[in-house]
């Protein structure tokens, strides 16, 4: 087992990893930017190294400084968390080359799966159901139009290197295709340095269902059931839950098997998520693999009782999976609300100083946060203040717990999206069960009209 791990991240996920390390008896090194010197993740770690100024690209994403920090502190391994360097194949590769274990998949896995178009092609070849779409990237307008017509409008243009909705365009009419492709390519190039795009059929009311998977060195692959992440705003997840109210036992089993098949087809290792898009009839399609631990992993931890971060660390250290598929049971229902610093009207991030922070407690409630009794939401980083997760014996108890916990949550000095979460949890459509990824955008549009 590792003796010392560097956590190449900040905020709640850095704390999350430090907690796992402490429970495993592993020493920790925090890295931080110049503005984060007083942060909780720095205080919780055994050692800490400043790696640059506030801007993430100069500190948390600064590969030479992060690796130098790993070298001068003599760590065996690096946990990247999510964001920053978590899906940077180059970083994973350099770690491998200097003999520091990158806690995650290999650089090849990251490279293959972060190219969405390439991953699509690979899965299609392996018999995984993928969304009807173009074979690989498109470029000349004529053939694009032919493909789109064959798929039938509306279609969606997606960036191969994409994520978070960038480089995406929905096209409803033939005549808008060419311009949409152009602008998607431009945006993709600007955002990711690679302008390649591909086409897929566009579903109007899909559900976002993802399976948490873990694989070890020996090729053992286990899934931890699904998360339903359909409550999104502009492709950003807002609420996640497990199990999905849209699946029955048969479908759950089938999709779980496909998720495992996806990971086996690339000989995956460590934690990853297989994302599916599902239509109203229960037909599902592979979308992509996230080659990192995700924000919403805590939902799965609550509902299965498994510590995914510790499992990640154990696997990275060469141990075999400590669970078999039959050990992974759904013990109830869990829901996560991402509490963000957010302007209540414009719904934009609003950083600032939290003058009082007091998280809810009691049965079935878990809070992951890097806030103390006060705290700062820095404009340099993402605006998430806390993850609030509620567990109950069934969905209705989990919902009731979340609502009372939201009422208890004290965050003063700054605006946050707790009122929005209340609106969603109080909404009859959400309470009833499955919603599509357009539920929240519709709710907010109605509101603003």
């Amino acid at each position: 087992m590792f003796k010392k791990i560097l956590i190449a991240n900040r905020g709640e996920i850095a704390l999350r990893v430090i907690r796992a390390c402490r429970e495993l008896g592993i020493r920790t090194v925090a890295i931080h930017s110049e503005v984060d010197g007083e942060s909780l993740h720095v205080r919780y770690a055994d050692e800490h190294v400043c790696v640059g100024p506030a801007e993430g690209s100069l500190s948390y994403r600064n590969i030479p400084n992060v690796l130098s920090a790993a070298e001068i502190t003599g760590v065996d391994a690096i946990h990247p968390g999510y964001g920053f360097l978590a899906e940077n194949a180059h970083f994973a590769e350099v770690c491998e080359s200097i003999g520091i274990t990158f806690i995650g998949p290999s650089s090849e896995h990251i490279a293959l799966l972060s190219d969405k178009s390439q991953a699509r092609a690979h899965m299609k070849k392996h018999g995984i159901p993928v969304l009807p779409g173009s074979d690989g990237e498109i470029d000349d307008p004529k053939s694009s139009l032919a493909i789109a017509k064959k798929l039938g409008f509306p279609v969606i243009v997606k960036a191969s290197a994409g994520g978070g909705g960038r480089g995406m365009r929905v096209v409803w009419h033939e005549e808008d295709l060419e311009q949409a492709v152009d602008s998607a390519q431009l945006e993709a190039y600007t955002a990711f340095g690679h302008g390649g795009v591909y086409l897929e059929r566009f579903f109007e009311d899909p559900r976002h269902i993802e399976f948490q998977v873990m694989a070890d060195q020996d090729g053992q692959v286990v899934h931890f059931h699904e998360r339903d992440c359909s409550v999104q705003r502009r492709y950003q997840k807002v609420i996640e839950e497990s199990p999905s109210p849209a699946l029955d036992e048969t479908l759950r089993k089938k999709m779980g098997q496909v998720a495992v098949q996806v990971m086996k087809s690339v000989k995956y290792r460590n934690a990853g998520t297989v994302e599916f898009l599902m239509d109203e009839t229960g037909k599902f399609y592979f979308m992509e693999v996230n080659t990192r631990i995700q924000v919403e992993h805590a939902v799965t931890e609550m509902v299965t009782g498994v510590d995914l971060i510790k499992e990640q660390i154990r696997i990275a250290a060469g141990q075999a999976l400590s669970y078999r598929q039959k050990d992974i049971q759904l013990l109830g229902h869990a829901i996560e609300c991402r509490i963000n610093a957010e302007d209540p009207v414009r719904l934009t991030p609003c950083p600032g100083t939290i003058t009082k922070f007091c998280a809810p407690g009691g049965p079935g409630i878990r809070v992951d946060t890097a806030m103390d009794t006060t705290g700062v939401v820095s404009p340099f980083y993402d605006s998430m203040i806390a993850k609030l997760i509620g567990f109950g014996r069934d969905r209705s108890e989990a919902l009731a717990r979340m609502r009372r916990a939201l009422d208890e949550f004290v965050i003063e000095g700054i605006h946050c999206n707790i009122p929005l979460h209340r609106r969603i949890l109080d909404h009859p459509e959400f309470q009833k069960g499955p919603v599509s990824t357009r539920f929240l955008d519709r709710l907010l549009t109605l509101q603003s009209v």
Partner: protein
Amino acid sequence: MPDSSRREIEDLVELLNQYHLTELELEKKGMRIRVRRDPAPTFTSSGVEVVKTPEAHLPSLTPSSPQPSESSHLLTISSPIVGTFYRASSPDSDPYVEEGALVKKGQVLCIVEAMKLMNEIEAEADGKVIKVLVESTTPVEFGQPLFLIDPL
């Protein structure tokens, strides 16, 4: 009146009410607070003894620039990278500079090794080396002060 001022005033009024005060004054930044309650009930009690110094600063939103040292005209040379600090180019060589030495802008002061690369750190101005702040072969983090220079 800006909303924030209005809220501030309302807060003060609330405190005034809550603690039945006569007067409540607040100045910001340099901090000046005055509370007053008129008329006081009768009693006997002797003098004020302790006034605690208030503390509590929060982590700041703005990047903390290296603090000016006490003698603020001095120039601090900080490490621009994370790595290991060496005062000489090899274990057998003399240090690049000693305390008291005069240096020229651009002159190499030390090496910070990172990822097997030797990064030469140069003087940012002509001046005199007042203090070497780190011992050779020590790990240094980003922004860590290495030398104090008295610029000429």
